């Protein structure tokens, strides 16, 4: 019968899945360079299309209407959201997409539970993997939604913590989730236990992300991304679906490494990020450090900055989250063009955790057509600062804080920073004298080499550019 023909058989499915995940791997390896990256992503997308079509072909088709409508709604919601989102809002977009992925895994596990009346007659290993995917998927869904809320400023970006109760409450919620999971694995349970598992895991996810401050968001998003990947891989084992196993695990592994690399760039452990360090309960730290900033701050004008830069040989732009907030990337590019027209060399020094996402600044600058070669990673940039005439810091703070080198008592001591104070002169564009996300003072601002230009970053940069044109 039809079911035995090759096109509808298990071997066909297995082979097509091999094709699909080969395309994922090949596509992802294309992301190692800017020239092959677009193609790589599209190749991975082709793999995804193959996996979906194969899945539809090999299975008996029930619920056709639901499937078609579901996929359509997904596309109708997903495509415009992805096309319209501003580059500055990219971190929350990724958080949101990650969240729905985690939610899907958890829901699939819930449906499996219902469909088998609480995993009746299901091999134990399948139950274990399915329950694991429900747990992690739910944590990822709720955690990502909180991360989205914080980045979108629906919820305060500042750490929200239950104080001393935080840890005990979180531990209790976590234990409830684990207890539900164990009960389900041990023997078939009423549905309420599964719902209890999903809810307690969700509360755990919320409690996990709420106390984490804005500066640590890149690490958290990357971690939640890895979580969803692992949950997808576990769901793949439960469903004996090799495409899900491979794709999920690749994301799980790569996400874990990315998270670790980022944590290293901030000189922190993943644990300390999660427990909530300086991005966390900042009050004490901030109070202690404000007194230290006793020096005088020199403020300057756009015209003066323009003159200094026009006569420089090398100007290095140091962008931070402030540039994203005021959407100044295009203005910055205009300023760079004006400088280049006067024969000044312009480079951009990018700290690995500047912004709210790894590579956040690169995306924004690329949007503004800044040539890829002008973007310097931290080590290269630091070796160039001693020959830099003017370093212009646009909305960056903690990643330039010399305390990270000099003050063992500083909460960010040991974090590798951009040594902008090595350059001949430093100009800092800033809205006001408030401290950065980490809530600590920055002695760079009172350095005799430093001049401050207060105001909205975009307006300030535009002013500098028009002064440059008049020179």
């Amino acid at each position, binding site marked *: 019968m039809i079911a035995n023909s090759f096109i509808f058989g298990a071997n066909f499915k297995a082979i097509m899945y091999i094709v699909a995940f080969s395309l994922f791997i090949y596509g992802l390896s294309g992301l190692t360079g800017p020239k092959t990256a677009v193609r790589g992503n599209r190749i991975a997308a082709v793999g995804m299309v193959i996996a979906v079509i194969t899945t539809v072909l090999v299975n008996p088709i029930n619920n056709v209407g639901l499937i078609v409508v579901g996929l359509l709604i997904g596309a109708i919601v997903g495509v415009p959201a992805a096309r319209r989102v501003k580059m500055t809002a990219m971190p929350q977009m990724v958080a949101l997409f990650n969240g729905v992925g985690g939610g899907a895994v958890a829901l699939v596990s819930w449906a499996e539970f219902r469909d088998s009346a609480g995993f009746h007659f299901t091999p134990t290993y399948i139950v274990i993997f399915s329950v694991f995917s429900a747990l992690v998927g739910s944590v990822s869904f709720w955690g990502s939604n909180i991360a989205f809320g914080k980045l979108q400023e629906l919820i305060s970006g500042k750490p929200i913590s239950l104080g001393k109760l935080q840890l005990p409450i979180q531990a209790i919620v976590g234990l409830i989730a684990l207890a539900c999971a164990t009960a389900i694995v041990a023997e078939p349970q009423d549905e309420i236990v599964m719902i209890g598992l999903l809810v307690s895991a969700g509360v755990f996810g919320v409690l996990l992300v709420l106390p984490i401050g804005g500066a640590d968001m890149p690490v958290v998003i990357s971690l939640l991304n890895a979580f969803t990947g692992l949950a997808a891989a576990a769901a793949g*084992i439960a469903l004996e*679906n090799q495409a899900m196993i491979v794709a999920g695990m690749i994301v799980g592994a790569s996400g874990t490494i990315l998270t670790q690399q980022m944590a290293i760039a901030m000189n922190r452990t993943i644990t300390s990020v999660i427990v909530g360090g300086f991005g966390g309960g900042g009050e004490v730290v901030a109070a202690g450090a404000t007194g230290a900033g006793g020096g005088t701050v020199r403020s300057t004008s756009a015209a003066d900055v323009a003159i200094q830069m026009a006569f420089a040989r090398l100007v290095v732009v140091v962008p931070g989250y402030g540039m994203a907030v005021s959407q100044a990337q295009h203005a910055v590019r205009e300023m760079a063009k004006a400088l280049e027209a006067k024969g000044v060399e312009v480079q951009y020094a990018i700290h690995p955790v500047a912004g709210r996402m*790894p590579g956040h600044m690169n995306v924004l600058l690329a949007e503004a057509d800044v040539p890829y070669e002008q973007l310097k990673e931290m080590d290269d940039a630091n070796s160039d600062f001693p020959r830099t005439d003017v370093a212009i810091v646009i909305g960056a703070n903690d990643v330039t804080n010399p305390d990270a080198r000099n003050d063992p008592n500083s909460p960010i001591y040991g974090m590798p920073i951009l040594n902008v104070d090595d350059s001949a002169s430093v100009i800092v564009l800033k809205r006001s004298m408030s401290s950065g996300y980490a809530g600590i003072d920055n002695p760079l601002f009172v350095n005799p080499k430093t001049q401050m230009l207060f105001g909205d970053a975009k307006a300030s940069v535009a002013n500098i550019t028009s002064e440059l044109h008049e020179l």
Partner: protein
Amino acid sequence: MTPLAVYISISGVSPLVTNLAILVLAGFVGYAVISKVPNTLHTPLMSGTNAIHGIVVLGGLVLLATGADLDTGSKIILFVALVFGAINVVGGFVVTDRMLEMFKPKKDKPKDDGDAKGGDA
């Protein structure tokens, strides 16, 4: 059972072990691929891997397609899962594509080699 499963069971290895082997190998592949990505491309990378875990859409698909006698509750749950998964996949790839287009060498650069169809902006 299916021919593939029969073959596996002749070798005395259960599907679980085979799948665990796939899982472990995929972990190493993920590690190897990602170690080579420069910091600059970390956002698109995260966004790209984010799209790939949208593979979970298959979970909803399989259960809906094979579930001849699902009750309404399960149908609703799986429908939502399918929508979520589809948003994850489609949105993830489109947004990554948009980001990566920006990193491509632009038209106004004379040394644009070969792959010159990009940069429609």
